[in-house]
C-alpha cells in the first residue's frame, strides 16, 4: 500500500519538507531543523500539518450513554463547546486508543483519534454503539492544522476575525468560518505550549495553511514537522499511542491515570479502578541521561543490574539539552532521584529518575 498524502503535500514540498512515511501517510519529518522548529514553538510559534489524524462524529440520542460505556472518564466533564482527553479501553483494561472528545451538542460528539488506529476505533464504536447512535468517519474530508506557541493568538486573530477567539479558554472550542467554510477552532495541542488545533474541510486547507504562514512571518512562525512534534510532546511527557499506550498497557500503567474519573459503568472498570487505587504492575517513569548518550525506544532500563523495563519514548531535549526518556518499568522499584542504567549498544549509560513532566505546560500567550 502506498502512503497517503494530505491536501498540504504540495505545500510541504515547496517548503523543502523532508518527507517520511508515518502511520501510512507521507508527511514532513522536518523542513530545516528539528531543533529550530522545536524552539520556534517554545518561543514564538510553529505550524503543523496533522491531517493524517482521524475524526469520527458520533451522534444520536444514545451517543452520550454509548460513549460513557467505552471510556474511564466522566462524560459529565463535558459541556457544549468543551473537549476532554480520554481513552478507549478493552476488556483487559488495555488502551485501544487515546482520543479527544469534543462536545458539539447534547447528542453530537466529535472524536479526534490517532491515524493508525482510526479503523480500529470505528470498528470498536460500531460494535459497542447499537441503538440510537450513528458513527461517521469524516477523516478523509478533514484537514487538521495545529498552530502552537506563545504567538499563536496574534497570528490566528489576523486570519479568523471572531469575537470568541480572544476569550477562548483551554479545552474549549467554537466553530468559526474561513473563506465561507466552517473551521473548528480549539484551544488545545500536543506540544506543552499554548496554541490551537484547527479542523477544516480539505478544499480550504492549503489556503488556510499559507495564510497562517504569511500572517505569522512577523511573529517568527515556522512550519514544523513530525520530528519537532515528537520532541515537543516528549518534553511535555505526553503519552503516545504505540509507545506509552497500547492494547496491553492500561491507562494507569501508561501514565494517563488522571483520565480515570467515571462513576458509572464502563468496560474494564474493575481492573482500572483497582489499579488507580492500589497501583498497577508497571508504571511510566521519566529519565534524564547523566552523560551525553541519547536514549531511544526499546532500550532496556537496569536498576542494580536487574532488568526493570524498557524505554517507550526517548530522544534529545532541545530545551534541557540532554537525553530524556519515558520508560515502562516494574512498579515500586525506583522513585524520583534514583539512579538507573540504560543499555545502549551493549554498553550502559547512567540516568536519573526525575519528576514528570520534563517541561511543564506553558499557557503563555503574548
Amino acid at each position: 500500500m502506498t502512503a497517503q498524502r494530505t491536501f498540504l503535500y504540495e505545500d510541504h514540498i515547496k517548503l523543502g519538507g523532508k518527507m517520511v512515511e508515518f502511520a501510512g501517510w507521507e508527511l514532513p519529518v522536518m523542513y530545516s531543523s528539528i531543533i529550530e522548529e522545536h524552539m520556534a514553538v517554545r518561543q514564538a510559534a510553529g505550524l503543523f500539518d496533522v491531517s493524517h489524524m482521524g475524526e469520527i462524529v458520533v451522534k444520536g440520542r444514545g451517543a452520550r450513554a454509548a460513549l460513557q460505556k467505552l471510556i474511564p472518564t466522566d462524560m459529565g466533564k463535558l459541556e457544549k463547546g468543551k473537549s476532554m482527553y480520554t481513552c478507549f479501553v478493552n476488556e483487559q483494561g488495555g488502551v485501544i486508543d487515546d482520543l479527544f472528545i469534543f462536545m458539539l451538542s447534547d447528542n453530537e460528539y466529535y472524536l479526534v483519534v490517532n491515524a493508525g488506529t482510526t479503523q480500529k476505533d470505528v470498528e470498536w464504536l460500531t460494535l459497542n454503539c447499537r441503538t440510537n447512535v450513528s458513527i461517521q468517519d469524516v477523516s478523509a474530508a478533514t484537514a487538521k492544522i495545529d498552530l502552537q506557541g506563545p504567538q499563536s493568538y496574534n497570528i490566528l486573530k489576523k486570519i479568523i476575525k471572531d469575537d470568541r477567539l480572544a476569550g477562548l479558554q483551554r479545552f474549549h472550542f467554537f466553530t468559526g468560518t474561513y473563506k465561507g467554510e466552517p473551521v473548528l477552532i480549539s484551544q488545545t495541542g500536543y506540544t506543552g505550549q499554548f496554541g490551537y488545533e484547527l479542523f477544516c474541510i480539505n478544499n480550504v486547507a492549503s489556503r488556510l495553511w499559507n495564510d497562517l504562514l504569511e500572517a505569522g512571518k512577523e511573529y517568527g512562525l515556522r512550519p514544523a514537522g513530525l520530528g519537532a512534534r515528537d520532541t515537543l510532546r516528549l518534553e511535555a511527557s505526553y503519552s503516545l499511542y504505540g509507545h506509552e499506550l497500547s492494547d496491553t498497557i492500561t491507562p494507569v500503567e501508561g501514565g494517563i491515570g488522571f483520565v480515570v474519573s467515571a462513576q458509572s459503568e464502563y468496560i474494564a472498570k474493575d481492573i482500572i479502578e483497582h489499579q488507580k487505587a492500589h497501583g498497577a504492575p508497571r508504571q511510566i517513569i521519566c529519565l534524564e541521561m547523566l552523560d551525553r548518550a541519547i536514549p531511544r525506544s526499546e532500550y532496556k532500563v537496569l536498576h542494580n543490574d536487574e532488568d526493570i523495563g524498557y524505554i517507550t519514548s526517548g530522544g534529545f531535549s532541545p530545551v534541557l539539552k540532554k537525553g530524556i526518556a519515558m520508560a515502562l518499568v516494574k512498579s515500586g522499584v525506583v522513585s524520583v532521584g534514583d539512579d538507573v542504567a540504560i543499555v545502549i549498544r551493549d554498553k550502559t549509560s547512567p540516568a536519573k529518575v526525575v519528576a514528570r513532566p520534563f517541561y511543564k505546560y506553558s499557557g503563555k500567550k503574548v
Partner: protein
Amino acid sequence: MSNIPENLKYTKTHEWIEVQDDYTGVCGITDHAQEMLTDIVFVELPEVGLEVKAGEQVAVVESVKAVSDVYSPVSGRIVEVNKALEDSPDLLNSDPYGKGWIFKIDIKDKHELDELMDASSYAEHVASGE
C-alpha cells in the same frame, strides 16, 4: 548541492578520508551525510588503538531523530579521535570536513584507497539518491 572537496576520497556510505601522508588518513562524514542527518547531538567515538577492517563500523552519530553508523573507509589502526565532538557534536553539521573530523587511522594497505570514490564519482553517487 552539497560540498564535495576534490582532494578527498569517499565511500558509498558517505564517509570521507583525507590522506595526510603515506600512513595516516583523517576520516569523517560528508556534507551530504550531515545534511541528511541534521541536528547532530551525539557522537560515539572509537577507542584509540582499535584495529578495524575497511567497511567496519567504527563510530556512531546520532541526530535528534536517528542513529547512524559510521564505517571506516580503509583497514588500519585508530590513532587519534576528535574529542572536541564529545562536547560539540554540532561541529559535524557546521564543519564536516574540518573541525568535524572524527578519527585518524594508520592505513594498513594503501591499495584500498583505490577502491574508494573520487569527488566526481561521489557527486554522481549522491545525485543517484543512494
